[in-house]
């Protein structure tokens, strides 16, 4: 007699207040939402949402009074799509016709959505997403409709871009908060491209970034850039984790300087930047491209506080023995609190967090599916229910009467 099939896991929504910390954790088997009071000591978790689907992209959009979480579940069977919730996971909207679709004339079909990025605060209805194969989509009506960015899709370099291990993915989107036309993207393996005219035209911005797997290690494009981060208050400051190589730019990507000073390996994927200090960045070095695990079995986050002149390991609370871990390109996030919180997830399903800028770490969760993205946000626009507060006031009165 065949065994009874188990029900698909059902998930309760996350309960949050304004100012709470939020983590969006995308895994190979669904999305998890975590919430905490601003002290970030104890986390509650909801999920998995979209059980069975990988979720490489997630974002919280609090512009224009929203409290919208976007996610990009991708089913091996049924394809990738954009979905959203306005009630922290109680209900999800999944349009019958997926929002992100390649136009027929492109001849392409969507494989995965790697990145979801809200636009500038001054453009609250603009969003971007980066997809595989190597394209940027944009929406200017709060996500109701999306269109392929033709400037990048039509770039003459595109036919020579090659897929990396994760596919030909556009995984990083940086919207310059101070220059309205400037958008920077990164593609594996094509490198960094920047537009200064709102996405109409794009130029490769890889000068100084090595591509050691080519006969000419300094090509105009073709670098396998794994992650780029940008400082919001000083947008010309970028850090870049390459497929071999750590770099910094002080001119918005026009040029890159090698800053692999004192790291056990300059191979890695993820990267984070401090919300206030543009000289502080975080990485998790991996042994090599042939052995993509933390060196020496030690899980170490490395931090620079001098723009890459030197890096120091942060290990307090992280396993320093038998820890052959992998942290991939979008699995690290830095929140906007002071002191800043740093969070990362591993391929082995462990979620770590620091609420003191990396001085000490806590294992927030283990046993999750392989973690492929971690995003940090602050809850806003949460409606406070007057009804929910009443029993507490009554209880207080009752105690006084007693």
């Amino acid at each position, binding site marked *: 007699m065949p065994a009874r099939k188990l029900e698909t896991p059902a998930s309760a929504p996350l309960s949050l207040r304004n100012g709470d910390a939020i983590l969006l954790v995308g895994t190979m088997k669904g999305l998890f939402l975590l919430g905490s009071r601003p002290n970030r000591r104890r986390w509650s978790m909801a999920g998995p949402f979209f059980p*069975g689907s990988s979720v490489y992209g997630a974002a919280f959009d609090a512009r224009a009074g929203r409290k919208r979480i976007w996610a990009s579940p991708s*089913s091996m069977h049924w394809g990738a799509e954009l979905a959203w919730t306005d009630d922290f996971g109680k209900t999800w909207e*999944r349009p*019958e016709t997926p929002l992100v679709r390649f136009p027929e004339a492109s*001849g392409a*079909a969507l494989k995965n959505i790697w990145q979801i990025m809200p636009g500038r605060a001054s453009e609250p209805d603009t969003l971007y997403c980066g997809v595989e194969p190597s394209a940027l989509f944009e929406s200017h009506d709060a996500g109701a409709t999306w269109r392929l960015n033709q400037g990048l899709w039509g770039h003459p370099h595109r036919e020579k871009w090659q897929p990396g291990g994760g596919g030909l993915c556009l995984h990083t989107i940086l919207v310059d908060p101070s220059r309205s036309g400037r958008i920077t993207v990164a593609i594996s393996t094509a490198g960094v491209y920047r537009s200064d005219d709102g996405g109409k035209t794009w130029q490769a911005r890889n000068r100084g970034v090595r591509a050691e797997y080519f006969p000419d290690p300094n090509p105009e494009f073709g670098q396998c850039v794994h992650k780029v981060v940008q400082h919001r208050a000083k947008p010309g400051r970028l850090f870049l984790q390459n497929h071999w190589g750590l770099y910094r730019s002080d001119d918005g990507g026009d040029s890159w300087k090698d800053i692999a000073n004192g790291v056990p390996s300059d191979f890695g994927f993820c990267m984070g930047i401090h919300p206030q200090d543009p000289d502080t960045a975080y990485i998790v070095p991996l042994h090599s491209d042939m052995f993509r695990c933390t060196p020496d079995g030690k899980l170490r986050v490395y931090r620079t506080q001098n723009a890459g002149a030197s890096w120091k390991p942060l290990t307090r609370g992280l396993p320093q023995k038998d820890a052959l871990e992998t942290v991939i390109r979008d699995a690290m996030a830095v929140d906007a609190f002071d002191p800043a919180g740093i969070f990362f997830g591993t391929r082995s399903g462990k979620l770590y967090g620091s609420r003191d800028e990396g001085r000490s770490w806590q294992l927030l969760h283990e046993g999750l599916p392989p973690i492929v993205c971690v995003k940090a946000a602050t809850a806003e626009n949460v409606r406070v229910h007057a009804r929910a507060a009443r029993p507490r006031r009554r209880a207080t009165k009752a105690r006084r009467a007693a």
Partner: protein
Amino acid sequence: MAVCFLIPGPLLAFSGGRAAVSLDGSPQTVAEALDALGAVHPGLRERILTERGDVRPHVNVFVAETNIRDVAGLATRVPDGSEIAILPAVSGG
């Protein structure tokens, strides 16, 4: 009744919860039958086919007991009264 689609569990959200969707009309091929299905339940067609109109790589479409990949693909003929089963392939990780 011309054809009846059998819908797998993960797609019931896009068929109004119906595990079997019967369509009137006279589709001659699987492609025509899927177009008719898409007119009623667009979310189903979108998840069976890519935007290029190809059957997704990890989806199998059977007309009766024949996998259309083994015959003429989307051009496979659909006899009147056929059952067309949509089945997720045995793949995953």
